[in-house]
């Protein structure tokens, strides 16, 4: 496929540009604009029809989990990533980071060609030149017999490439590469290896009677979060016998917020608790050591004893990490978890062979000692995420030849002297073994975005191909690399060869195993243990990888920058979490700029009082605070020219927030992993205050019953009310007064204006439209159910929606009006001007006056346009720009909208978003899709111009596409034939979409669930979105906090 599409090379790219321009043009544009040219294919690629999407199965490389992807491509451009339903790991789900891979592919700051640094000045070179220089450099080192000192730091990945790379290195007499993953939990891996003999057994939450997590954030970034989330949701959504979930740790992460109970121990206290639960040491002692309530701990111990098997996880990152992990393993074994909830038999191979921080530090020391002749960096950014204290930059500078294969101008790359940008995983061949016995294939879903600048090399090569080229230049090595390119190499190595590969590609999967790297025992490096006790400061400093930006990799993707942090709802900025009680004591308000000081450094960031952090601790997320080595002027889209490198990880990441690594000492624990919670810190107010770019209005729902919950115990006893406000219906018998509204497209029917629909009305044309006008479409009522018992608040749905519906990001500092005093990042967010069509509201329940030690509950509500049958927004629009479609959609017609914004005023759910600036207009500085980001735009969806209201359309373009396909095949739509982007992307399957008027669709059945309710039902809006109450599992005796 991509062979065919490759032929026309540059020319077909012009063709793409035309399409790009077309789809990027705006609703505001009139009809009489320049019609332009039509550039045909030279040779039309088979299997593709212009204007119809082609789907390729491939593999996600954004983290080590290697989830399966389905890439939707239109006219040769990838426009959407979705999970591969057949994939054994993610079963069709995909997290926000995975979806955002597209913005890595189309990132405007990607290197367009190789570059070399000569005398401090960067200059663009051709691919041929780059390859020659590389091979020369290597030949020299070999000549000098220093090849043994080479260091290749590679982003950790599973599959054949690591072995391929080792072979290549060996060929030149270089040692095996370091496969680095900063987010991996070294302690857990080590403990697993010692206990079960594998790095990462697959976990089964479904089979657990109780789940206990020691700081293991399996919903954020610990382990393979997508499958874990899916499994967790399945487990918790069971209406009886669902496992309770207890979270132990000093900070309540997104995972913690999903727990029924939070035992807030002080940092380092986990060890005592784990030991006590494992039977070593008394509960009482543990309680005092960890500073937690003894009763709660005792209760937990009893519960663990009573409910077997349990699933206990450890994700502690302190100096005692390994010990905790081992103790936890003991607990698991005691409760018979092994083989049931923890399955060493099906290990996640993606976690094998990770080189931990101690080895990396060892390499750094060798560099400092001048023993390293040549250093390669690929997909890793040690200059950013090694603590300043390690002086990586100085050590690195001692290496004569520093080659970066990074696609982005990150900190490490800036320190290199030769850049040979790698292809994006969506442009290149590869494979992975996500779970033992399954090979996941990675294939290019489109031509490389950027043309090659070389006569002899027709298409920009990936690193693997570059390595092969280099090898071919060297007589001695060439023999080992007979295959013309990496693709051929893969085919050769693939069990069954070309045929089998060809057969496997459509699904992207094949049975079989990929031989693992043969790793000589890593050079032993003495762990640099640091004792947190010995550090100064009144607060423990908790640092953690952001669930969205990871260790900083995501920072150059506007989707991830804009996506509010699931816990704090802050975007485009760093923050310092501090417990409200402490904040009150120190007189700190939300947004006050705090100065955090440790022995290693100082940072300044706004404070975020957060109930979920220990009162003696402050917490800072990683991911932001990218800096260029040499200070660069503020980015200005007007003066920026293509090819001008935006050092500091690109325009979206540079000089944004703080880098918590600056505060940390260089410390590794017994398992060789990096110690995240390594030091204490002192906090002082600076006196300034800046409004946090947060989408949060009020964190409490003031008893308005937006997010409703019910106790598992009450659920099955009918009539037992949850209490609270009267409108919250009894769990046993939910008021289903809204159901008629769901059965007919126009709620007026439900109100009896046309006679309430009867059984006989099913499938008939209903609604106020005349029979002969509606062509039988009106029998449908598109609707959605959202199960709050499943929703974990991970926010993947938001990214899915952004990708599908061309929703602009508005937080970059240059996206404000020109004349503003402050050009702060996230300024538009601060002003509440976010555009995301679906938002995740995070409401706290209980502990109203923010006391530490009092538990609280969190409820996540995905809030999107409710597509009301009686939509308040519709009648007030003076120009019919919003109206009720005969199939029950509440439609927004962008090109008719004049922007009175009356509809938004009248919307009780506040789900309409206004284009305050020309986010969709190419010539404006607020343009949200700078070339080539606009290649990702969905051609089926209009890009909205300035001054226009927009909102969730229930992916009407997907509805139309399905209808078109059905009519083309002369058939009716099949139940659950298609779904909308948010539902498709949801990793916990909380969202279901379909036709509620037809009982055969799942959504119609779910709407009858006894947990079903409408938000603001008393407003008589007859919404099409039905929520299912969250289910709480309070500790025995206790009752969950109320709404």
């Amino acid at each position, binding site marked *: 496929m991509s062979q065919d599409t490759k032929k026309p090379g540059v020319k077909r790219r012009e063709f793409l540009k035309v399409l790009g321009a077309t789809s990027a043009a705006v609703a505001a544009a009139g009809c009489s604009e320049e019609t332009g040219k039509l550039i045909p294919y030279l040779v039309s690629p088979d299997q593709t029809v212009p204007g119809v999407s082609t789907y390729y199965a491939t593999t996600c490389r954004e983290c080590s989990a290697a989830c399966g992807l389905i890439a939707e491509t239109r006219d040769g451009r990838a426009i959407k990533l979705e999970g591969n339903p057949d994939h054994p790991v993610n079963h069709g789900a995909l997290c926000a980071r995975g979806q955002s891979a597209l913005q890595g592919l189309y990132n405007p700051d990607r290197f367009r060609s190789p570059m070399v640094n000569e005398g401090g000045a960067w200059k663009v070179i051709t691919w041929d030149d780059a390859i020659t220089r590389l091979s020369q450099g290597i030949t020299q080192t070999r000549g000098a017999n220093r090849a043994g000192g080479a260091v290749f730091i590679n982003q950790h990945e599973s599959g054949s490439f690591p072995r391929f790379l080792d072979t290549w290195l060996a060929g030149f007499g270089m040692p095996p590469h370091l496969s680095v993953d900063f987010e991996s939990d070294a302690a857990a891996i080590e403990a697993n290896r010692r206990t079960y003999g594998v790095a990462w057994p697959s976990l089964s939450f479904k089979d657990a009677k109780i789940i206990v997590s020691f700081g293991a954030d399996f919903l954020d970034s610990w382990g393979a979060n997508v499958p874990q989330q899916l499994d967790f949701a399945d487990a918790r959504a069971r209406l009886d016998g669902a496992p309770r979930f207890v979270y132990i740790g000093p900070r309540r992460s997104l995972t913690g917020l999903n727990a029924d109970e939070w035992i807030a121990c002080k940092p380092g206290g986990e060890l005592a608790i784990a030991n006590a639960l494992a039977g070593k040491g008394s509960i009482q002692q543990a309680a005092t050591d960890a500073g937690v309530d003894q009763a709660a701990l005792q209760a937990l111990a009893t519960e663990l004893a009573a409910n077997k098997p349990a699933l206990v996880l450890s994700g502690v990152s302190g100096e005692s990490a390994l010990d905790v992990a081992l103790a936890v393993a003991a607990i698991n074994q005691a409760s018979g978890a092994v083989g049931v909830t923890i399955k060493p038999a099906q290990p996640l191979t993606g976690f094998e062979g990770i080189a931990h921080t101690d080895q990396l530090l060892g390499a750094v020391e060798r560099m400092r000692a001048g023993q390293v002749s040549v250093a390669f960096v690929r997909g890793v950014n040690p200059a950013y995420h090694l603590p300043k204290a390690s002086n990586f930059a100085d050590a690195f500078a001692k290496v004569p030849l520093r080659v970066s294969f990074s696609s982005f101008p990150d900190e490490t790359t800036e320190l290199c002297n030769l850049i040979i940008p790698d292809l994006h995983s969506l442009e290149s061949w590869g494979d992975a073994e996500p779970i033992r016995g399954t090979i996941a294939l990675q294939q290019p879903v489109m031509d490389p975005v950027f043309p090659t600048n070389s006569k002899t090399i027709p298409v920009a090569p990936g690193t693997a191909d570059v390595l092969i080229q280099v090898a071919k230049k060297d007589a001695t090595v060439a023999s080992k690399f007979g295959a013309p390119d990496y693709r051929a190499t893969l085919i050769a190595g693939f069990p069954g060869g070309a045929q089998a590969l060809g057969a496997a590609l459509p699904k992207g999967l094949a049975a079989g195993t990929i031989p693992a790297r043969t790793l000589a025992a890593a050079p032993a490096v003495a762990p640099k243990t640091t004792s947190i006790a010995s550090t100064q400061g009144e607060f423990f400093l908790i640092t953690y990888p952001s669930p969205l930006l990871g260790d900083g990799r995501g920072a150059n993707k506007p989707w991830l920058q804009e996506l509010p942090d699931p816990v704090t709802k802050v975007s485009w900025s760093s923050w310092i979490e501090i417990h409200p009680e402490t904040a009150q004591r120190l007189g700190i308000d939300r947004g006050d700029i705090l100065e955090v000081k440790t022995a290693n450094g100082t940072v300044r960031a706004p404070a975020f009082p957060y109930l979920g952090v220990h009162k003696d601790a402050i917490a800072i997320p990683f991911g932001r605070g990218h800096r260029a080595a040499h200070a660069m002027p503020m980015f200005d889209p007007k003066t920026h020219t293509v090819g001008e490198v935006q050092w500091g990880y690109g325009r979206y990441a540079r000089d944004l927030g703080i880098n918590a690594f600056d505060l940390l000492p260089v410390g590794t624990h017994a398992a060789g992993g990096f110690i995240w919670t390594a030091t204490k810190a002192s906090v002082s107010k600076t006196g300034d205050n800046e409004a946090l770019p947060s989408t949060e209005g009020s964190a409490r729902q003031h008893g308005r019953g937006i997010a409703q919950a019910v106790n598992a115990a009450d659920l099955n006893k009918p009539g037992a009310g949850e209490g609270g406000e009267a409108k919250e219906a009894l769990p046993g018998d939910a008021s289903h007064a809204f159901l008629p509204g769901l059965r007919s497209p126009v709620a007026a029917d439900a109100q009896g204006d046309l006679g309430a629909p009867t059984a006989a009305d099913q499938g008939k044309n209903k609604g106020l439209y005349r029979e002969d006008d509606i062509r039988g479409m009106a029998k449908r009522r598109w609707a959605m159910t959202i199960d709050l018992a499943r929703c974990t608040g991970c926010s993947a749905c938001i990214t899915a929606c952004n990708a599908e519906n061309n929703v602009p990001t508005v937080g970059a500092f240059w996206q404000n009006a020109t004349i*503003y005093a402050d050009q702060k990042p996230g300024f538009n967010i601060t002003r509440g001007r976010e555009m995301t069509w679906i938002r995740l509201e995070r409401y706290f329940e209980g502990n109203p006056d923010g006391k530490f030690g009092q538990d609280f509950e969190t409820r996540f509500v995905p809030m999107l346009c409710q597509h009301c049958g009686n939509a308040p927004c519709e009648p007030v629009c003076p120009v019919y720009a919003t109206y009720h479609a005969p199939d029950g959609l509440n439609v927004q017609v962008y090109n008719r909208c004049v922007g009175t914004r009356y509809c938004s*005023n009248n919307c009780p759910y506040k789900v309409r978003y206004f284009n*305050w600036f020309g986010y969709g207009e190419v010539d404006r500085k607020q343009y949200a899709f700078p070339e080539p980001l606009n290649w990702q735009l969905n051609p089926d969806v209009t890009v909205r111009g300035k001054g226009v209201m927009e909102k969730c359309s229930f992916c009407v373009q997907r509805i139309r596409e399905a209808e078109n396909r059905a009519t083309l095949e002369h058939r009716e739509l099949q139940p659950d034939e298609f779904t909308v982007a948010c539902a498709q992307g949801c990793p916990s399957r909380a969202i279901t979409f379909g036709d509620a008027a037809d009982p055969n669709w799942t959504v119609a059945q779910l709407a009858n669930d006894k947990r079903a309710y409408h938000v603001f039902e008393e407003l008589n809006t007859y919404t099409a979105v039905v929520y299912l109450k969250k289910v709480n599992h309070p500790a025995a005796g206790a009752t969950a906090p109320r709404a």
Partner: protein
Amino acid sequence: MATTATPLPGGQRPNIPSAAVRFPAIKTYDQVDREIAGTLGPSLGWFGALGIAILCMLIGATAWTYQIHEGLGAAGYQPPVMWGVYIVTFVFWVGIGHAGTLISAILYLFRAGFRTSIYRASEAMTVFAVMTAGLFPILHLGRPWKFFWLIPYPNWRLIWPNPKSPLVWDVFAILTYLTISSTFLYIGLIPDIAILRDREKNPIRKAILSQLSLGWRNSDREWRHFTRAYLFLAAFATPLVLSVHSVVSFDFAMALTPGWHATIFPPYFVAGAIFSGIGMVFTIAIPLRKAFKLEHYITLNDLDAAAKLCLFTSSVVGLAYLTEFQVAWMSGNRFEQDYFWNRVFGQWAWAAWIMLICNVVLPLSLWSQKLRRNPAWLFILSLFINLGMWFERFVIVVPSLSHEFEPWQWGTYRPTWVDYSILLGSFGWFFMWFLLFIKQLPVMAMAEIKEVILPPMRRRRDFSHDLTQGVVDPDETGATH
């Protein structure tokens, strides 16, 4: 012998009984012409004022240009507060307009004597206020260049505006109001323009005035139809005053936003409008009578009467405020209650209290006749009223939106320099027109004033007698020579 005169047919417009003593200081027709026509023609101070007005107008225009280029984000909107200063100012100016029509039309029907001297000025104020207000709905659009989509005109899209939308009602109401009140103003002006025309020496000006006066020549036939048409226009304008601001209030009352969704709005808005209008009348008329030395036309009696009206409307508005709270309190509706609590004790308390003090507390001073007859105080008070009424609209629009159903979307609002410049610009625009008006055309209806002063007589006699009887009594017939 018997007179040929017929008795007064019903509905004929009689003179105001107290006509003879209406303007004790005004003796002859010539005096009226001389004094009022004398106020015309530019003066240095006038040029200064006009300059300032135009400057402000230009500032506003610049801000608007910038906003159109940049996008509405240039203004300080902060979702969920999707309406802000612009709509507030729109309602404010429409409100100002109402007093003018009230004085010129309603008081005309009620034969309130004190209208004669101030109605011309206030009618002009109405027209210019509505002209100003009319800008804002366009100005606050996301795509102002598409404003005409709100007007039902035949087009190739075969699509029409939505007649169910309060905003379309607005379009109809405002356009009608502008048309009728400007017609009303112009019709009233015709005889006076004729007077100016006949006094004018400069041929060019004379030509222009001749065009404007439409060849009016004061014949009995013209007067006969004129007076009747005038009466009917007044009769039309009267319900219009009540309807227009009711329709404006529907913009809010028809929405279900807490703090907007209230049946009390129409009367409440109309009262508020008239209240603010009277305020603006004071702001304009008091300096005017001083500058133009027309104290014997706009007499203290007139001010006193207007002040009473002001006091009345103020108390109506005050009652409306209280009713809102009482309704919210008794409704048992959580959203209403939260909102109204938030209004007076929440983040917007300051605005609410400005409103209450300026509109309810200060006007209480008008219970004292001494203050009612004290132009200086009335002027100061009127400024407070203008401020208070602007903030009334602010309190209705902004806090309601910032504190709606969805706690997650509760927000705040911070206008930017663009909002403020355009607000300033609106005042510049208004006063520019008004200043141009008062120096080109008479600020008082000469013909109508002549109507209510004693006509020149050869023989003194009881005047009221003439009104009831014929023109002359029989015994005197023929006795003249």
